[in-house]
């Protein structure tokens, strides 16, 4: 009865899978019914395996019970994945609504099917499963992908907002609902204060990250982004802590017995739980970072170490009744920096992807379960409670946003505008967390649990769908663009130039804030932590050869796409072009403008970009690679031609004997750094495999003081022939912007011409040579013995 699942166009596949699901559910029903009876099925095909011994050996046996749970879970996950594929196939959809909408719809669909076929769904979610298996991956992922530098820069505001905001929301909603419950007319008087408070705490768990993807293009500024992210990160933890404390209260006392002492104890407990969790997380983070220092020979277990230690931190914290969520978050944040440097490139990628996958699976399961609960008979609908819940959620969120930000703005160097605050208010979308907590309310203590669940579901649906879909337009509206009219080519070009210029100058200015604390931490980090936690002798050769292969591959790709790209508009006649008096037709101008718009390099986004459900495709990387390669080539050419560089240095002056290889290069151990980070150290884009960008060539020019840095050539493309040119710099400064330097002559050659020079150079292995071969006109065939630098280039000039 297995159904083949094959990937095809989304909706059709959905349909197919639904049919599959239905049949399998139906068959399982059939199975159950046959199991329950002792009658033989006359049809041999459906003989149940577990009934009385048959006289004949059954030819075909079905045992659905055995696989039911994993089978259905797998089907659900696959269904959600297919739905996501379909979702992303329609390009406009992800910008319209958050992906959680999609997951909820899928969940509701599955729920409808299960309900419709009267199938008993496997108990996927109970308290232990949720807290032990489903929740940690989600939290781990958000902790790992959190950009650390902006987080710590804004940490005061974030803690203030997330912590107090959650508390205000929880207590505000709880108390207001309690007041509503007191009104006899609504029939809610049996819901006491504690229960209301508990409900308030679970309903205030927001998941604003889910909507981030929707208004990302509006270029939300970095602190705002960080606020939302930080809130999402800490919010779950805080709600769960509150939830647990309040449950403890509910269990241990009758309402009348609660004394102020208990309340104080509760507060103290809150603090201890939070801080203790973070403490354990940090310890485990350091331990795992330390261990990854030694795993160079078995890099296959590196992801395992990362995951297991994070999970362990969670479990240990939970054992001690501390906050496991905060522990795992702290662990992820701590260990990320060191692990990234220690771990091999493939492990790094594996960790990222696996984390996304795990969290995606968890969330999918929770949403599906939510869908299953939605379509069912176990609801209790109470108009008053539900409506007031909705109202109070919005009201209290507004109150907390505006009040808290008003206060924190007094202390910030860059205060949040009202527009920002509106965005934060409106992004209070609830997610899977609230539902889980509501679902796991113990029925014994909460006789009206169904009502709570219903109310939670309504709030989630409302916020996710209505707020989720309208937040995009709202943000775009708030971010009113000045003009919509088309700009002339001049303006396009100049605007883009200025954007680049501004981004560049911003980079020169660097990040400004809390210098002292940060510098102190960096010094401490450099002096002690890195020595302990980061590997010493990294196998550079594998890195270098990896770079070489990657560069080659990329260069091939780039050139191939360059050559194959179509010329969009008709090129004006050569003769007229020279005169410069040709009047181009409007269509030409139009197409020219489009060409320009689409092909100009994007300005480097300093704002972060985090997508909860996806790892972004790295288009900006491609762009950066192009720029880098182009610069290398112009640099190389200028050097070769013996041009005097505009800044007046004698050309090819000291054509520096730089070592071609790092082996045996004496390195002061204290200044050893494996990779030079390309962007800011704690840079936002953790998605970017940072190693890609660590290569750079440094043209060594005469300078007053010999660089105290180690120079290691990285572009082994040029290894054979130009030992001087390429290396990447290991920066020993404590500067965050470790980087590469590069000089380029100011006459960049068109890239594709330059690139094939790369092919000529460098020692190529046979496979690479053949790879290049087909793509190239015969005269550019690489020659291995080709060590003369000048001729191929001069030939082509």
């Amino acid at each position: 009865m297995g159904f083949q699942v094959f990937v095809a166009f989304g909706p059709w596949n959905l349909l197919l899978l639904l049919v599959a699901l239905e049949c399998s559910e139906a068959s399982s029903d059939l199975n159950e019914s046959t199991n329950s009876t002792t009658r033989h099925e006359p049809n041999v095909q459906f003989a149940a395996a577990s009934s009385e011994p048959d006289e004949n050996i059954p030819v075909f046996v079905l045992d659905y019970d055995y696989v039911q749970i994993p089978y259905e879970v797998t089907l659900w996950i696959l269904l959600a994945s297919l739905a996501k594929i379909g979702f992303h196939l329609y390009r406009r959809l992800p910008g319209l609504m958050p992906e959680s909408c999609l997951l909820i719809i899928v969940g509701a669909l599955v729920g409808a099917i299960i309900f419709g076929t009267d199938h008993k769904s496997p108990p996927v979610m109970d308290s232990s499963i949720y807290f032990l298996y489903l929740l940690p991956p989600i939290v781990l992922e958000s902790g790992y992908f959190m950009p650390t530098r902006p987080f710590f820069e804004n940490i005061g505001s974030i803690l203030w907002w997330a912590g107090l905001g959650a508390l205000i929301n929880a207590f505000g909603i709880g108390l207001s609902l309690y007041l509503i419950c007191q009104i006899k007319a609504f029939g809610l008087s049996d819901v006491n204060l504690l229960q209301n408070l508990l409900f308030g705490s679970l309903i205030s768990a927001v998941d604003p990250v889910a909507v981030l993807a929707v208004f990302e293009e509006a270029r939300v500024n970095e602190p705002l982004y960080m606020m939302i992210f930080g809130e999402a990160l800490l919010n779950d933890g805080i709600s769960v802590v509150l939830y647990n404390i309040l449950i403890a209260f509910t269990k241990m006392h009758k309402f009348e017995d609660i004394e102020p002492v208990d309340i104080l104890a509760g507060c103290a407990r809150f603090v201890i739980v939070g801080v203790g969790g973070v403490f354990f997380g940090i310890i485990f983070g350091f331990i795992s970072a330390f261990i990854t220092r030694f795993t160079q020979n078995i890099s296959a277990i590196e992801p395992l170490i990362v995951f297991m230690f994070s999970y362990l931190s969670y479990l240990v914290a939970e054992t001690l009744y501390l906050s496991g969520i905060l522990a795992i978050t702290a662990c992820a944040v701590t260990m990320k920096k060191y692990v990234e440097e220690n771990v091999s490139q493939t492990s790094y990628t594996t960790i990222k992807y696996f984390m996304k996958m795990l969290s995606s699976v968890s969330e999918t399961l929770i949403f599906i379960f939510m869908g299953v609960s939605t379509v069912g008979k176990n609801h209790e609908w109470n108009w008053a409670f539900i409506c007031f819940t909705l109202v109070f959620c919005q009201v209290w969120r507004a109150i907390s946003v505006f009040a808290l930000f008003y206060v924190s703005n007094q202390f910030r160097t860059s205060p949040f505008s009202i527009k920002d605050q509106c965005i934060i208010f409106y992004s209070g979308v609830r997610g899977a967390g609230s539902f889980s907590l509501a679902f796991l309310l113990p029925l014994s203590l909460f006789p009206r649990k169904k009502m709570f669940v219903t109310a939670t579901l309504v709030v989630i649906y409302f916020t996710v769908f209505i707020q989720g879909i309208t937040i995009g337009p709202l943000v775009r509206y708030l971010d009113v663009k000045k003009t919509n009219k088309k700009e002339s080519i001049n303006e396009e070009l100049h605007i883009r130039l200025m954007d680049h210029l501004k981004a560049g100058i911003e980079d020169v200015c660097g990040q400004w804030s809390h210098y002292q604390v940060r510098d102190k931490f960096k010094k401490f980090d450099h002096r002690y932590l890195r020595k302990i936690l980061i590997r010493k002798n990294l196998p550079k050769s594998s890195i270098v050869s990896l770079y070489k292969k990657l560069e080659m591959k990329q260069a091939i790709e780039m050139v191939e796409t360059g050559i194959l790209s179509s010329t969009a508009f008709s090129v004006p006649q050569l003769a007229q072009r020279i005169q410069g008096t040709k009047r181009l037709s409007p269509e030409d101008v139009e197409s020219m403008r489009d060409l320009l718009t689409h092909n100009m390099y994007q300005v480097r986004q300093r704002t972060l970009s985090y997508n909860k459900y996806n790892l972004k495709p790295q288009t900006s990387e491609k762009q950066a690679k192009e720029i880098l390669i182009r610069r290398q080539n112009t640099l190389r050419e200028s050097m070769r031609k013996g041009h005097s560089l505009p800044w007046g240095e004698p050309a090819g002056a000291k054509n520096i004997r730089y070592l071609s290889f790092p082996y045996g290069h004496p390195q002061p151990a204290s200044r050893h750094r494996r990779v030079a980070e390309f962007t800011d150290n704690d840079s936002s884009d953790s998605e970017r495999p940072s190693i890609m960008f660590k290569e750079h060539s440094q043209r060594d020019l005469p300078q007053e003081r010999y660089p105290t840095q180690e120079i290691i050539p990285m572009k082994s493309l040029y290894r054979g022939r130009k030992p001087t040119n390429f290396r990447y710099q290991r920066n020993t400064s404590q500067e965050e912007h470790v980087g590469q330097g590069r000089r380029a002559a100011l006459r960049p050659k068109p890239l594709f011409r330059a690139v094939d020079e790369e092919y000529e150079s460098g020692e190529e292995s046979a496979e690479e040579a053949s790879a290049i071969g087909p793509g190239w006109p015969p005269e550019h065939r690489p020659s291995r013995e080709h060590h003369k630098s000048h001729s191929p280039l001069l030939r082509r000039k």
Partner: protein
Amino acid sequence: MGSRSSHAALIPDADSLRRETGFSQASLLRLYHRFRALDTNKKGYLSRMDLQQIGALAVNPLGDRIIDSFFPDGSLQVDFPDFVRVLAHFRPADDEDAGLRDPREPEPLNSRMNKLRFAFQLYDLDRDGKISRHEMLQVLRLMVGVQVTEEQLESIAERTVQEADEDGDGAVSFLEFAKSLEKMDIEQKMSIRILK
């Protein structure tokens, strides 16, 4: 790192710099810290190499030109006052009424004209006061991806110069440049918020 107040004394000519550039004391201090952080060998000035250490500039298509703009006239070093003077161009425009400004004083560095001049020099490499077609083409090359062919670029450069060129000399002078951008909000485009 010591208390902050002592650093004010470390900045040479802080007051005259402040007046000239319009930065606040706090901003000046921060810039000083940044200058010193960039100055890896503690030379007291920045060389090109120091600026090239900024990784992000390396993938900025205009990275080299931006660095060059710190080193006018082919000098090899930039000291703190010059550093600050360049950055002063990007200070957000003051809201105070420009009318009250003393017309005899030189225009503040972050005026619209000065911002435009700064941008202009990114194009005009040979400093002849005009952007020739060749220079425009070079900038275009820097800023456009590889898939655009040479001919296309040349046409675009051609067209760009044509659009802005009014006196027909085949090059864009500064005034023509400024005129072509008169509708744009330069003050906002070329202002960095934190530099107040």
